[in-house]
């Protein structure tokens, strides 16, 4: 399932003009990533949940998007609790459970999930190609956007190539479980993929030159600003001010 699978749902968040939505979302994400106090983090988390609810994104989709970050947090945070230093709440031989670590782990977990929910809510509700065209309107360099678009196009192609190469290697007895013993085979797969991509990159570059590609990015999306878009920006601005007040008071 792709990140922008539900970008066309009928909801106020999806209907928000991407130029305003992505700008406001980016600012709100940076503010939320800077919070450290419990009241402001709780409010930010609540706000993120409201955004997800308003966007009508299916719960299963949101949970699937959260799966990888939760697994990473589950691996990282216990280590943090055991290595943070300071006052120990519990000790056994060389193991110490630190109070600072527990507080920091809770803060990181809350902040991380909030920011990822906001990312899904703001950026997962815009088609990726529309997002690139929005970024062009927001004066992001066109060379960078063209590279992003080309990369997006070829990632899926090479994921499929990699899957085929691995299948072929497995049929010949390659086994990931034997790890380092097959380092030569794994490196061979990388070489094949890189050589193919290098040759393809030359063909693509030549084809693009023939079509008159000059590095500029020309979006065809039309954006319409409505009073509701400006109201949503104003609400986000008020929300950011409230979060900062809770953080700094």
């Amino acid at each position, binding site marked *: 399932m*792709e990140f922008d699978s539900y970008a066309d749902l009928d909801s106020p968040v999806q209907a928000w003009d991407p130029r305003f939505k992505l700008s406001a979302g980016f600012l709100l*994400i940076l503010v*939320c*990533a*800077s919070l*450290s106090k419990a009241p402001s983090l709780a409010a930010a988390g609540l706000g993120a949940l409201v955004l997800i609810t308003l966007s009508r994104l299916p719960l299963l989709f949101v949970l699937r998007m*959260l799966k*990888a970050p939760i697994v*990473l947090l589950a691996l*990282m945070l216990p*280590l*943090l609790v*055991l290595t*943070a*230093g300071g006052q120990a709440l519990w000790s056994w031989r060389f193991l110490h459970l*630190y109070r600072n*670590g527990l507080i*920091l782990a809770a*803060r*990181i977990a*809350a902040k*991380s999930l*909030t*920011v*990822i929910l906001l*990312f899904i809510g703001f950026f997962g509700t815009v088609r*990726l190609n529309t997002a690139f065209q929005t970024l062009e309107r927001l004066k992001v360099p066109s*060379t*960078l956007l063209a*590279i*992003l678009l*080309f*990369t*997006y196009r070829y*990632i899926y*192609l*090479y994921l499929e*190539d*990699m899957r085929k190469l691995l299948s072929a290697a497995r049929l010949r007895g390659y086994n990931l479980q034997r*790890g*380092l013993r097959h*380092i030569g085979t*794994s*490196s*061979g797969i*990388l*070489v094949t*993929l*890189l*050589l*193919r*991509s*290098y040759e393809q*990159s*030359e063909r*693509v*570059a030549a084809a*693009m030159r023939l079509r008159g*590609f000059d*590095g500029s990015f020309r979006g065809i999306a039309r954006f319409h600003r409505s009073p509701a878009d400006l109201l949503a920006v104003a609400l986000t601005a008020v929300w950011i001010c409230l979060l900062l007040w809770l953080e700094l008071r």
Partner: protein
Amino acid sequence: MHISEGVLNSPVIIGGYAVSAGLTALALKRVRPGEIPKIAVMGAAFFVSSLLHFKVGITSVHLTLTGLVGIVLGTPAVLALLAGLFFQAVMFQHGGLSTLGVNTVIFAVPALLAYLAYSGLGPLAGKRHSLRALIAGGVSALAVLVGAALVLLVLRLSGEELTGIGFLFSVAHGVLSLLEGAVTFIVVRQILKVKPEMITAGFMPRRQGRSRG
């Protein structure tokens, strides 16, 4: 080598964006329109290649390939890595938007250093492919260590409590650097045999004179 969302404090997040903006601007200056598809296609291939896992002990690790990206792409590696990190955040929720700047620095600086080191040392090996590959492997292994040191630095700047976990992370990457060096050695040696212009002449035409052995 990603830093997850929620770990960094605001000065580090802002600093990361400022430095990555500088690196991106530098790389954009060096890119000509005809090179855009090449950078993107190779960037996508490196992105997919880095997903290949190796079983090590009870766990499995995946390569970063920062050194190899730097050696093949040169300065535009910054753009390929930025694109890769952006799509990792979008497709797999690894890293994230607030940490995109810092993660770009953590990946791009080792890639650029690897490029500079290989550009300087590679020609010394002349046409001896194995020696050239050995230099590339060594440079890539060091690039992983530089990345790990940068992770430790940004974690330390984000809070004293994160130093311990940063140190554990660095030790784990010491092991990864050996694997990365070995894979880069094999990959570069094979590429030098069948498509030497991909590495000996450098990916970008502008670098032909400098890195030819």
